[in-house]
């Protein structure tokens, strides 16, 4: 008996079963209480409410949702808005963050101090502060539509939001997109061929110059042509507001600006850390081999810096996604706001609604993680 109790295998099994039993028991207890409480309060359960008409108007829409649509469609509209805000904020934050990170490493004392001051100020303030500040203090303080700030006389920024022109037809853009896909595909094929040739013969190939043409040049020109070939609905001031175009509501502008300016400070630190993590010997060795400074950066510094930067960048991007839920604080109709706010108000089914919302964030987050892990595996060091 003593030997049985002291057997390591037996003890391992015992503890694992005990902990799981405790957790499952606790959850069962919670579920029983919840069903009792909900029965007492007369709260319905199940997912039938998703079929009901929502009756809610949304001020910012990218789907075909109307007030007569179902709650499921309301959910989808919220998801699309969340992803849109997060994507735009991530792109903006990446550019701003890389610029700030490189500026912080500049030899120029003034530039590096300014970038450093930005990072230190922003990192130590809550993100909700930025959302509220941009919305109530910056966008609200912009001039009205009559004195709007024109951007190349086609887009207008005022306290009613950012009014942007919209294309009247999408055909030219479809063609441009197709051309871009083909051209990027060609570059990928060339890269694969060039690598095989290098492995076989050791001869290099100017991949960067074909890349510049195929990845940047062709798509840029195709889209520029599409922009020129398409008729545009350009916003025009009529009376007190703009007619035509698409209105990015103030909530949208404030949320994107807040998420981007906040995340940029963290990305700047990641970029700085990544570049500093490249050992000095690597630079010296590269120079000793006779590489020019551009080549040193391209072939030695960036590949090694990226390897350090990708995992923390992933978690920053996920933070932007999660922080987009703060749109709920200023009334932007993203997932949290339309679902945990509006849909919960009309149905009262808190458990189902929270479960769906959390599941959606987890799924999107998982998708981003998988994507970035795949990329990380590509840039990671291959050791023998």
């Amino acid at each position, binding site marked *: 008996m003593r030997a049985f109790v002291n057997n390591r295998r037996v003890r391992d099994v015992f503890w694992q079963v005990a902990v799981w039993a405790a957790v499952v028991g606790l959850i069962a207890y919670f579920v029983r209480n919840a069903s009792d409480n909900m029965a007492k309060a007369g709260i319905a359960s199940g997912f039938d409410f998703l079929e009901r008409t929502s009756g809610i108007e949304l001020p910012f829409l990218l789907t075909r949702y109307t007030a007569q649509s179902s709650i499921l469609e309301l959910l989808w509209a919220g998801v699309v808005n969340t992803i849109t805000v997060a994507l735009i904020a991530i792109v903006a934050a990446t550019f701003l963050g890389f610029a700030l990170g490189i500026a912080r490493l500049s030899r*120029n004392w003034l530039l590096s101090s*300014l970038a450093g001051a930005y990072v230190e100020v922003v990192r130590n303030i809550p993100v909700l502060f930025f959302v*509220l500040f941009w919305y109530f203090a910056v966008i609200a303080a912009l001039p009205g539509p009559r004195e709007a700030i024109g951007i190349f006389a086609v887009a207008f920024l005022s306290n009613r939001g950012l009014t942007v022109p919209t294309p009247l037809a999408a055909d030219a853009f479809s063609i441009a997109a197709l051309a871009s896909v083909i051209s990027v595909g060609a570059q990928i094929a060339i890269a694969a061929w060039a690598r095989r040739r290098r492995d076989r013969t050791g001869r290099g190939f100017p991949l960067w110059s074909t890349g510049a043409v195929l990845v940047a040049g062709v798509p840029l020109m195709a889209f520029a042509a599409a922009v020129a070939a398409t008729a545009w609905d350009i916003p025009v001031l009529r009376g007190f507001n703009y007619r035509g175009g698409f209105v990015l509501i103030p909530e949208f502008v404030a949320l994107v600006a807040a998420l981007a300016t906040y995340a940029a400070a963290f990305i700047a630190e990641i970029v700085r850390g990544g570049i500093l993590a490249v050992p000095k010997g690597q630079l010296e060795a590269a120079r000793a081999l006779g590489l020019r400074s551009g080549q040193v950066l391209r072939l030695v510094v960036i590949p090694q810096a990226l390897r350090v930067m990708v995992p923390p960048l992933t978690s920053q991007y996920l933070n932007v996604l999660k922080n987009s839920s703060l749109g709920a*604080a200023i009334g932007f109709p993203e997932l949290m706001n339309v679902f945990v706010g509006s849909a919960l108000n009309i149905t009262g089914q808190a458990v189902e609604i929270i479960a769906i919302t959390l599941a959606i964030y987890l799924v999107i987050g998982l998708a981003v993680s998988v994507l970035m892990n795949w990329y990380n595996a590509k840039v990671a060091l291959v050791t023998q």
Partner: protein
Amino acid sequence: MTTRLALSLRFVRARLFATPLDAIITFACCWALAHFLAPLARWLVIDATFRGATRADCTGTGACWVFIRARWGQFMYGFYPLDQRWRVDLVAVVLLLCAALIAIARPRHRAVMAAGMAVALPPLVLFLFYGGIGLPTVETREWGGLMLTLFIAVYAGLLAVPLGIVLALGRQSRLPAIRTLAVIFIEFWRGVPIIAVIFLASLILPLIVPSGIGVDRLARAVIGLALVIAAYMAEAVRGGLQAIPKGQYEAATALGLRYPAMTMLIVLPQALRIALPAMTNEFIALLKNTSLVLIVSILDLLGVAQAALADPAWVGMTMEAYVFAGAIYWLLCFALSRASLRLERRAAQSHGG
């Protein structure tokens, strides 16, 4: 004197005007500074109004700090009854005294003292804030401002640290079922937005306790925050656990120590010391994230600032309210991040030497 001048001249040439491009960058930065910083300084200080008592005194073109002075009590205590605010002040004094005591104590006594205070102070502070046994009760909905921000951060932290340690140990466990459980728990809370968790806590917690038991609104928010921060703390502690050499485990086993003794006496004391800077950073994140309780209408520092904007007697004080609240958050978090840096440096030194 001349060497100094030469040195600064050399600095200016090397760090500001090394190349033509550098000179252009320097001038562009100067232009930006003059364009943005000068108006900011004028608004903040030069053109600002400091004296007075009402909105009518705000005549300058700059900020009107009179507003902050008039609202000072709310920014600090929220709607805590005026005649009871001495209790909050008393807590502040006691905490400062305790901090001073730890600072002047002998290094080897510090850990024991800190542990004793961590056990004794939270109930005492809770009693002083809430009342009972002789003190008039102050409901949690009357709490607010900076006091509430710090209260939520500290109490959520107190819940999160032990839970985080347990989770980290679970994730590093030899037993696969326990490891899986810890991973699921940690990744779940790290994968969802904090405001969703605060909603979850405020809507679901009252449902899952037996009917008849109420859960205080503030307690729900604290528990919600604690769950999320525990998951992040667990990752910080895991970093510390992974940094411990395998030989330590082997030596402990060779000495005949069982898991609990090995963990408490050998592993955790070393792991926590290594993880302390990372845990401090998580606490900073927690302090910033307390502002999210605004979403369930609990008015912490940022919430009070937001609520103050609705006062018809003080129209147009948006900037002042935000700048003041933002400055306080910044001061707190910046001080903590400096402390974390110092801890990190000291740890690096003790490892090197």
